[in-house]
């Protein structure tokens, strides 16, 4: 059983999102389901600060001992911060996918998109 916190929003590409500085800054990462499927994560190619990213477009990569997976931007916006700690400790994504293992913070212009993402219940159905 993977962990799916109620307060987050999700994508079918296994990213999570939460508003950290309401209303416009959101924090994103990959889900517990995703990290478990990937196995030991050894490298994360994060988006660049200031980069404009587009919803559903590739904005980074998560590499495990076995394989590489792309990170899809859950929303359109500008990258404000990336989790520099992951450069030294990529395994934080395995151990705390919703905490210390967050990947980036994005400034969005249209907050209504958040409500269009999957709820915890919907994501639970998707991964059941």
């Amino acid at each position: 059983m993977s962990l799916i916190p109620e307060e987050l929003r999700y994508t079918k590409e296994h990213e999570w999102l939460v508003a950290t500085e309401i209303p416009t800054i959101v924090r994103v990462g990959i889900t517990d389901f995703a990290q478990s499927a990937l196995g030991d994560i050894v490298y994360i190619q994060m988006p660049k600060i200031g980069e404009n990213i587009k919803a559903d477009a590739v904005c980074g990569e998560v590499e495990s001992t076995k394989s590489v997976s792309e990170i899809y931007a859950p929303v359109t916006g500008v990258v404000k911060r990336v989790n520099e700690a992951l450069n030294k400790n990529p395994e934080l994504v395995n151990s705390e996918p919703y905490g210390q293992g967050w990947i980036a913070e994005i400034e969005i212009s249209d907050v209504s998109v958040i409500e269009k993402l999957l709820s915890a219940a919907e994501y639970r159905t998707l991964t059941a």
Partner: protein
Amino acid sequence: MSLHSPLHQRHLALNAKLADFGGWDMPIEYPAAQGGGVIAEHLAVRERVGIFDVSHLGKAEVVGNGALDFLNELITNDLTKIADGQAQYTMLCDDKSGGVIDDLIVYRKSASNLFLIPNASNTTAVVTAISEVAPPGITVNNLHKDFAVIAIQGPNSKDVLAKLGVSPTLDYMAFAEITLDGTPTIICRTGYTGEHGYELLPAWSEAEKIWDRLAEGIKEFNGRVCGLGARDTLRTEMGYPLHGHELSLSITPMQAGASWAIGWKKPKFWGKSIAESEKINGAHRLLRGLKSLDRGIPRGGMQVKLGEKVIGEITSGTFSPTLREGVALALLDPTIAVGDTVTIDVRGRESSALVTKPPFVPSHVK
């Protein structure tokens, strides 16, 4: 329809992540929640001890009067260089192309009884190729499901066996028939990890008994059950070839740097003329090690370049859990030397790497 190891129920009970290996549904890793995962399993073998189910590996025998002389005219290595009770790494090549049908371990039980361990997906090809040319009186039997193969690898492997009442004084690559807690098994000082270790070959029906004893025995040494994911990172760190990657029907032993496993003085073996020609004229590509100089992780199939020029391709690549950096094996243009810096095309990004001579970490097999 996937084939299952005799230990399949054990893997299911441990919630192993399973994947297809040559038609067999085998554990790739055990759950992180129970302390598993490729890196933890890998480090357990390097530092302590781990056990692997490798029952998907093929098993076959060549038996009958003159079996040794017959087989020795086919395979690359020289079976007369070892004694009864010893095993040898060898290759079976296609006589015309010189490419490798399979690489395998041959156990020399006697001059009339050779036991073979080919790769899972090549077992039928090996058995067929040898049977087709076997003279009357010599038979080749596919024993794929007659024996399980369980590897115990790592510096504490001998201590685990000693606690179970087995103190095999086996030299590297030697084997013996023993009983472990009442269960008969063949045991050989072999492995695919670069650590001191053993491979046990109990009867298929006895596999669970041996596995359970070993799984219990490793606990005292903080050992781990290990999947084939860790086996692959361990062998890659040692630069050991894997058929389908570093060896194949289109890759010769000389290209793969396996000339040490060729009995050059033998009057014949399949692929000898090609091997000799490549020995004299040089192969058009050579297997080298690559060590990432940045955060890039090389993967099989990626192009290797020197400037703008493509000079080869990665055959296997991974993150090395021991070194915590990217390592790879690659078939490169023979003009590229150890010590050169090359670039790897990592999905459109250029990553630089140093050309090295494997192993990437010291071997402890002997």
